[in-house]
């Protein structure tokens, strides 16, 4: 008997080239959508889901792959740039679709993150991305999560049509300033990245207002910045993020610390520190969920402290506001106490409805007091260190802890705030 091999199966080598090239894209999360299964395969849950973790500690949620790495652009920092000597591959839309379906069925993945180098031309690339998205939804009947990268300088009509099939789209800001962009990514410009973002944002609003059938980017837009390849400060970066959240309605900004994959006199030889990336994520977190503003966290020309986490650093600069009384402080203030996270704040606000909380109670409630005790009173009693200097030295961290708490898992957060 003959075994009929599925002709569409992508080859190992192609898969390797196209995923190797995509792996530095950090936006793994798959949350914020609510696509229901309509008689096919898959759905997109409102909370993302990690299906595996790689030895570098990152979550695998989506199949992250490029349609092609055969780029005609020449961004200096990128291994796929036209002038680089690297193995090239281009997949067909069907190869990608089949891979998604087979991985999804086995519960390896939550969906697809489809990106691409600019192959042939921006329009051609966008066309192929659109074709893949459309096939996946209509021919392969896939209702799982789909994130598609927007190609700068592509025809807005193609981008717009892609948005009818995708849960989320993203244009990467890449570098935090126009100047750096011009220097390192000559075919891109701030405008070629921000305009389509704006376009999609307006279309989404119009789509909602017209109450049209179907969906238009239910999980919104995200972006990514490379940190440490260029001289911009954390202050500049966080102000940019803040405006992307407030003005452009972005769902998330991802930070990717620069990893040198190519040598160029314009680029640093060394990888940017991961601690810095980590601090940026912490600060970003405070912007989005804890009611902080970028201005409170760091001056325009300044950088976040590498020794102290941004919440702690803020508290130390604002000692006049502390200590706060756990039995009375409003939730917003509890969240600003170093060491108290969403879960502890929730437990405190619940428990104090029934009884006046003392330090023993907090301990029993498994609220971590190591740092918080310097900023709190419980039933009027204070157990922390009085002199600011002592506090300062207490809090300086030898090495960054809690990396895990803030790494790239929106699920961690949503698990917490579901109850807030």
């Amino acid at each position, binding site marked *: 008997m003959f075994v009929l091999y599925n002709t569409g*199966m992508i080859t190992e080598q192609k*898969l390797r080239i196209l995923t190797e090239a995509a792996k530095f894209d950090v936006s793994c999360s798959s949350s914020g959508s609510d696509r229901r299964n309509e008689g096919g395969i898959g759905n997109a849950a409102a909370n993302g889901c990690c299906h595996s973790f*790689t030895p570098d500690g990152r979550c695998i949620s989506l199949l992250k792959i490029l349609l092609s790495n055969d780029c005609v652009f020449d961004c200096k920092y990128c291994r796929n740039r036209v002038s680089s000597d690297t193995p090239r591959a281009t997949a067909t839309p069907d190869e990608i679709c089949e891979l998604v379906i*087979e*991985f999804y069925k086995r519960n390896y993945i939550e969906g697809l993150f489809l990106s691409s180098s600019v192959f042939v031309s921006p329009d051609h690339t966008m066309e192929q991305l659109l074709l893949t998205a459309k096939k996946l939804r209509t021919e392969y009947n896939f209702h799982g999560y789909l994130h598609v990268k927007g190609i700068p300088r592509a025809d807005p009509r193609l981008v717009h049509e892609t948005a009818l099939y995708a849960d989320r789209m993203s244009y990467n800001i890449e570098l935090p300033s126009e100047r750096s962009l011009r220097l390192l990514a000559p075919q891109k410009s701030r405008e070629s990245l921000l305009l389509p973002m704006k376009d999609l944002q307006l279309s989404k609003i119009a789509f909602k207002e017209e109450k049209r059938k179907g969906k238009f980017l239910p999980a919104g837009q995200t972006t990514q910045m490379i940190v440490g390849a260029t001289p911009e400060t954390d202050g500049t970066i966080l102000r940019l993020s803040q405006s992307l959240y407030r003005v452009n309605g972005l769902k998330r900004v991802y930070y990717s610390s620069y990893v040198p994959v190519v040598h160029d006199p314009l680029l640093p030889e060394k990888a940017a520190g991961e601690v810095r990336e980590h601090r940026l994520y912490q600060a970003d977190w405070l912007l989005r969920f804890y009611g902080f503003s970028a201005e409170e966290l760091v001056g325009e020309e300044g950088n976040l402290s590498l020794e102290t986490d941004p919440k702690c650093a803020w508290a130390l600069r604002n000692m006049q506001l502390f200590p706060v009384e756990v039995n009375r402080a409003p939730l917003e203030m509890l969240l600003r106490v170093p060491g108290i996270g969403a879960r502890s704040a929730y437990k405190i606000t*619940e428990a104090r409805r*029934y009884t006046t909380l003392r330090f023993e109670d907090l301990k029993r409630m498994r609220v971590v007091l190591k740092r918080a005790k310097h900023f709190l009173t419980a039933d009027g009693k204070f157990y922390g260190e009085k002199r600011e200097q002592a506090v300062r030295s207490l809090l300086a961290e030898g090495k960054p802890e809690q*990396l895990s708490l803030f790494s790239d898992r929106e699920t961690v957060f949503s698990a917490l705030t579901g109850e807030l």
Partner: protein
Amino acid sequence: MIYFYDGSETAFLTAFVLSYRDEQATLVSGNAQLSLGQETVFVRADETSAARARERLLRYDKDCMHDLSMLLRSGDPERDRAALGYFRLIAKKKCPVRGMFAEPAVIETDTCLRRIGTELEHLRGFVRFLVCESGALYAPISPDHDIADLLLPHFRARLPLFPFAIHDVRRKKAAVYDGKNSFVAPLDRAEVILSADEENWKELWKDYYRSVNIPSRERLKQMRGYMPVRYWKFMPEKSL
């Protein structure tokens, strides 16, 4: 006195009533080691007594039986103590006690329930289906808590076109969706015939797993924290 019960809801409630006035009561279920020299009662499930207790507890907290059914799925050694303390507190306060985090029994119960929630969340991601020749899907699991059936709605909503079985090999039972209905059935060993290209897809997945890793940023501790080693056995990218 030690009250030994079979882990069922009825038996728990019966034991709860029986032990109510006993300040020193310890509830034990499962195959816990019974220490000699302690007085032990084997509680036989009594529907009438359980029904009365259930009714009374529900009057104080209409959601508490849900807590109980979840607690009894827990594989944690503390769960019997937590459950006894929690329901005694409800009976004493005559109201829901869920938010009274200053009470040790509430914290303990909360911890048990959260662990179950965490495992559910983990397994939604870490379950690995094998595709059988017939097109059906089969996933062996070995969870800490008794939650195979709680995974059913999640996968049913995603894969309505595929019959599947999630097999708890430790408890020897399977949560099954036959394409129309879902149910739980005892299952000791499963014979599965895999589809011809199952190995190939598995290999592609392992390739993918290898190629997305960034070796220069190894953080094994973090990986193990997020994805505890006890789940690796059935994950092709982690098993040998």
